[in-house]
């Protein structure tokens, strides 16, 4: 059994799974129940001067029969008195000394920062997370993402906090920026011991078409909110990768955004997170999901021959490259497994209308094929009836015209049968060559474009 304990800025956590600062970490009773269920740490719901919340506050995006693929909220920071939170934090830390307790903070003035940092250190917090990410409400008051979007301000406040704090400081970043590296660097230069990301993405989840009010409805009006849940995972992974691979950013990262199960967590860890934080998946299914996360991650590490989760941290980072460094001689083509295809022709329509018209339906004459939209015909389209168990009787297995296939993956992504279409490697050349190699060699020119461009590359186009 692999060791799941992590070292995060010197803090030992029983496992990398933390509750994100949000409703699941709103109170002592909740956090204690979460620790009992197996969560290794919790970032308490952001503390500051109490606020007032509106009702309602959440909205969700369903996809097909899947509920809450994306989640949207217009909730602010904690609405409970500071003293109550502090008392419960102290209690929780006393009951669970080995678990990681992080205080999330958001205040305005230097004076306020000083006071609140002292208070949360006194109750035994292991670290402080600075909420520079809330993209609604708080930012209208000059806090949250209003700070996260201004690298200068972010660096300055981080500096204050570092002056006052004796425990590690995590800067939580907002994804509502053009380039995440700027605020990340500002945090690091301001002295942050760690970064966490992402907070929620500015969003409007939908519009009520009967009443013409966006969701969620607050007395016949609404406001933009913060988007999170499974749908934001790819966005979060990108921001994570951006900072994980940056040579000047060498602090531990806590990954957040759409993590719902062990596999999501493992992906975040492989892309550079040391700990991961979860909000929406817990709001949907409860603390109980952590059992599968712990077990699944542990089994995965065993299967990889890794004895500690720390070995996984950042494993995929070196393979995250700029486009210009990708091998142009790598080439794949789609291959349909004749024993699995059920003959639905989804790959055909996707390739016809959304890709390169290289999948053919058997049994057509050349004329029919041209009429259907093909430009290039293979010498022969084999007429193969579907034979798979569960296949449609009488249906035909489509044919991939290999010479025309660009290896885009589209057909394999839409095929409803698992592992039916695989992408098989057919290299264009034995040695790798990237676009950046071509730039270096001066061969970065593709004929068929603008005259002006052609004139600028006399050697190549000569």
């Amino acid at each position, binding site marked *: 059994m692999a060791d799941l304990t992590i070292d995060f800025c010197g803090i030992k956590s029983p496992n990398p799974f933390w509750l994100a600062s949000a409703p699941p970490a709103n109170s002592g009773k909740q956090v204690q129940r979460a620790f009992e269920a197996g969560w290794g740490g919790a970032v308490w719901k952001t503390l500051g001067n109490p606020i007032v919340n509106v009702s309602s506050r959440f909205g969700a995006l369903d996809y097909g*029969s899947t509920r809450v693929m994306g989640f949207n909220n217009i909730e602010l920071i904690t609405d409970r008195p500071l003293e109550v939170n502090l008392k419960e934090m102290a209690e929780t830390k006393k009951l669970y000394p080995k678990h990681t307790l992080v205080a999330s903070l958001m205040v305005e003035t230097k004076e306020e920062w000083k006071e609140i940092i002292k208070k949360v250190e006194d109750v035994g917090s292991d670290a402080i997370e600075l909420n520079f990410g809330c993209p609604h409400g708080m930012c209208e008051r000059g806090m949250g993402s209003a700070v996260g979007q201004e690298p200068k301000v972010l660096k300055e406040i981080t500096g204050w906090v570092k002056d006052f704090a004796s425990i590690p400081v995590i800067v939580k970043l907002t994804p509502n920026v053009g380039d995440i590296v700027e605020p990340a660097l500002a945090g690091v230069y301001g002295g942050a011991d760690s970064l966490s990301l992402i907070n929620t993405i500015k969003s409007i989840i939908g519009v009520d078409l009967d009443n013409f009010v966006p969701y969620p409805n607050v007395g016949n009006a609404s406001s933009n909110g913060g988007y999170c849940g499974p749908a934001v995972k790819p966005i979060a992974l990108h921001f994570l990768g951006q900072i994980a691979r940056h040579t000047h950013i060498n602090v531990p990262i806590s990954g957040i955004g759409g993590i719902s*199960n*062990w596999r999501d967590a493992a992906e975040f860890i492989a892309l550079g997170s040391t700990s991961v934080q979860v909000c929406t998946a817990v709001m949907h*299914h*409860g603390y109980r999901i952590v059992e*599968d996360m712990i*077990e*699944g991650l542990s089994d995965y590490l065993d299967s990889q021959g890794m004895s500690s989760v720390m070995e996984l941290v950042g494993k995929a980072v070196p393979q995250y490259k700029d486009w210009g460094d990708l091998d142009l001689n790598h080439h794949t083509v789609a291959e349909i497994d004749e024993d699995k295809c059920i003959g639905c022709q989804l790959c055909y329509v996707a390739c016809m209308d959304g890709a390169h018209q290289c999948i053919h339906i058997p049994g057509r004459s050349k004329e029919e094929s041209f009429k259907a939209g093909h430009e290039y015909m293979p010498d022969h389209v084999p007429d193969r009836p579907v034979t798979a168990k569960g296949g449609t009787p009488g249906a035909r297995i489509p044919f991939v015209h290999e010479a025309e296939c660009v290896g885009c993956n589209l057909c394999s992504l839409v095929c409803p049968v*698992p592992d039916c279409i695989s992408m098989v490697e057919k290299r264009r050349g034995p040695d790798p060559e990237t676009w950046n190699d071509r730039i270096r060699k001066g061969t970065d020119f593709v004929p068929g474009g603008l005259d002006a461009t052609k004139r600028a590359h006399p050697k190549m186009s000569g």
Partner: protein
Amino acid sequence: MGHAPFSLPKGRLEEGFEDKRPRYSDGEAVTEANRCIYCVDAPCINACPTSIDIPTFIHKIATGNVKGAARTIFDANLLGQSCARVCPVEVLCVGDCVYNHWGREPIQIGRLQRYATERALELDRDLIKKNKRATKSGKKVACIGSGPASLAAAGYLSLMGHEAVVFEKRAVPGGLNTTGIAPYKMDAQGSVDELNWILELGDIEVRTGVEITASDDGDGQVSAATLLQDFDAVFVGIGLGADSALELPDEAGAGVYGAVELIEQLKLDPQASLQGVTRAVVVGGGNTAIDIAHELAILGVPEVYMAYRRGFERLSAYDHEIEWGRTDGVRVRVNAVPTGYQRNPDGSLKGIVLADAEDGKAKAGTDKLMECQLVAVAIGQARLTGLAKVFAGVELDAKGRIVVDDATCRTGHAQVFAGGDCVNGGKEVVNAVEHGKRAARAMDAMFSK
């Protein structure tokens, strides 16, 4: 105490049966798992006699954590593999899935359970063994009978660091799970494979061909007293006895079988044959009756009748089983009661005499011969529980069932526990497993005192 895995003779009639609910592929399993809404306080859990945490194991299938799914299942039900295939899920977990009341297709829990357990053991056969308690207690338990009840008890005892010796009077181990289950659900090989896997947990020995007796310690026999002397505790998992007979004239002889006896032959005896049987009559209205009728139909007997002495509404066989059997050609005759047999001069069976019945009783003057070459009598099984009474303090109820404490499966004798069909009078494999599990846990608590 390791021994070579058990095997079965080849050429058994049951080998020709098609598995009617084959295992899901990875993709099918994940798709079905994602349909489950991961209920809290899920009704399906309450409907499972072993209380498997169904939402959790299905959620784990959905996330690709198949090994975790199997751990969740085996924690609650060590015979999760065979239960996945033989449980009457329609009246257990699946029957209580929230989707039913919603009017939608319920989650196929049994098929998901089969996928999780089989797939996980392919990935790691030692999955459960790895969590075996490291310290050995030195305590030794004798299990009488090698059916699901005893195997569950022995398996869980092994995982908790104790030793078990399983005594089985038959040559083939596994109890009715091996000898009785309809082959289109699971063939005998499935049962034996599972048993071999349980033996790999270690510290379990199965002695076949050894009968536990009231007092004799002869060849192939061990007496109850010897057991008590040699072991720290005893688990009685002897199941039920021989098929009951109709006790009509001319019953004994060729062509008339007890149903359970006949099923055992069809499943295990390579010599068994149905050649020349063009019509078979099964007497009875329970699940054993529909099983043998269905099996005969699948094996190609052109006409298979089930004769039941009361009306349709009184058939005790599950509706889904009857429906399934009828699709495969079984014909059900209700309000028909046997009054005798007729034999040909050479002694072979000519037919069974059936009378019209009213409220289960024959109406005078309605006797009619139904010609057939085979009759299977499925009207119940005798009790073997006389044996249990040999242990001081063990009591039987009016129906001959061993009386136990529900939570611990302990009998009136402090060292003697019992479970399965001999306690509940004949239910399902899963009920037997639950008894074995409760008894193992209670023995473990007793040993660690």
